[in-house]
């Protein structure tokens, strides 16, 4: 068992070192072929806001060399509808569910966190810190959520700023850090328009690795979860060697689910 909240009275114990990253399997309702909950130590929902959000307009995808940019704009049906539609199913699943809170609506974070305190289907929260946030912002945002809930709090940081922001997140009560979202990039879409958003896919991995290593070197007392562009066994191993306790897979589940299964099995074996 991998304990992601060692300092919290609520345990967040993962039976496997691999998580399904935010939205990788939707609200546990969108499963790529061959992918099932039993493969994972935990599942993270898509980012949720208090009210529904229509998200970024269509034309959300652009390819980059060995990666892509995908801007959903925190498209989600809102907290209540998410709970109405999915909470019962989450209680049935044998794997912990973490609810991701949308980085674009930090003002919702404490309200949602408060409602989840007594919800048996949700084992913890993953807060999405947006690129460009300052340490003082992170300290404020995390502190507010920490006061609203005793649930395990994972804080996901932009990988390129992770070492700068990590102490503030831990100081304000983060139980674990997720490193992280890809750096802001731009690419030209098939229709010629420029799309700007965080880099994803294998091209994002070199930033995940540099972020994990930099945060591990700070010697903070919280577990580190590595995510962003992890596609190969070597990538996972490099993250563990650099100091991560668990990894998140996301686009690999979409692009090559069989490779994801092989990766999970190789880490188990």
């Amino acid at each position, binding site marked *: 068992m991998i304990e992601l909240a060692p300092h919290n009275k609520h345990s967040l114990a993962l039976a496997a070192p691999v998580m399904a990253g935010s*939205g990788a399997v939707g609200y546990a309702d969108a499963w790529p072929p061959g992918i099932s909950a039993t493969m994972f130590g935990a599942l993270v929902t898509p980012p949720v806001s208090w009210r529904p959000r229509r998200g970024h307009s269509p034309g959300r995808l652009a390819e980059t060399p060995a990666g892509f940019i995908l801007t959903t704009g925190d498209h989600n049906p809102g907290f209540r509808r998410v709970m109405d539609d999915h909470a019962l199913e989450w209680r049935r699943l044998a794997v912990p569910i973490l609810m991701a809170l949308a980085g674009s609506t930090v003002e919702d974070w404490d309200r949602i966190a408060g409602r989840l305190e007594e919800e048996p289907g949700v084992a913890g929260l993953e807060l999405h810190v947006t690129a460009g946030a300052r340490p003082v912002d992170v300290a404020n945002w995390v502190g507010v959520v920490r006061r609203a809930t005793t649930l395990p709090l994972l804080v996901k940081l932009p990988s390129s700023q992770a070492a700068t922001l990590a102490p503030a997140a831990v100081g304000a009560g983060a139980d674990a850090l997720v490193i992280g979202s890809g750096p802001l990039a731009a690419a030209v879409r098939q229709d010629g328009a420029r799309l700007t958003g965080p880099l994803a896919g294998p091209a994002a991995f070199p930033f995940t690795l540099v972020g994990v290593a930099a945060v591990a070197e700070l010697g903070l007392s919280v577990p580190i979860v590595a995510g962003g562009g992890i596609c190969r066994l070597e990538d996972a191993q490099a993250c563990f060697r650099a100091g991560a306790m668990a990894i998140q897979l996301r686009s690999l589940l979409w692009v090559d689910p069989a490779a994801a299964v092989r990766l999970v099995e190789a880490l188990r074996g």
Partner: protein
Amino acid sequence: MIQITATLIERRSLGAGQELRLRAPALARSLTAGQAVLVQTGCGLAPYLRRVFYPIALDDESWTLRVPADGDWGHAWLRTVAIGATLDCLGSVGNGFSVPAGSRNVLCLGEDAPASVAGPGISAWALLPAIVQAASEGRAVAFALEAALARDLIPSQRLPAAVEYHTAIRPPRIPDRPASPGVGVAQFLPELLPWADVVLAAGSLAFYSELATAVRAVRYELGRGFAQILYPAAFLCGVGACQACVADLATGRHRICQRGPVLDLVDVVGEA
């Protein structure tokens, strides 16, 4: 959806493009015209995004995809792969064309819509398996196709002999500019639309909007169940998780891998 390894068993050159026949019985048997297959087009992780293909021919054992003669690296890779090599396929995505049992007269309408204009490219070749099937079921099939260049038209020998084939060359569409009436396949519609029991179409959104206008003009109303269109969408996961494929339809924002890629024309242009 399944993920399977298909074997490249035949390559046919067509101008600078190619047709690749892939042996993949489990996938081929479940595929219908208009459903998408997501194909890995490289070794290792680049290109990372799978390329989207709609089958242009189908049998029990194999399906055929068409690689356009463009500059895409994934397509370039497919053009160099040796016979006997294996390709990783995810499919099928969404729902395809389906001709209602009672439809005797099937009208197929196509546009050669390259990726740059119509968003993700949709090719009229995607209609071929539906045309072949409808003809083999004894239905009357008419196929009207437009392209900017004669070389982009589907050769008539690729169609069953019984199919009535109309072609038109038209200048490329200019986005957001209304079409001149009577250009392209529009010239055949006053005659063909009254005859048709069902329409299957593959082209750009502009093409579909012109089609809706023509249906309303010729048949006075556009009802649900008359015209099926293949929606040009970019797919990433194909299972509803990634939200890459969302489109603003008449009824709101939907994931095309769940709702489409074949939609009722009414879903796209609305009832009005």
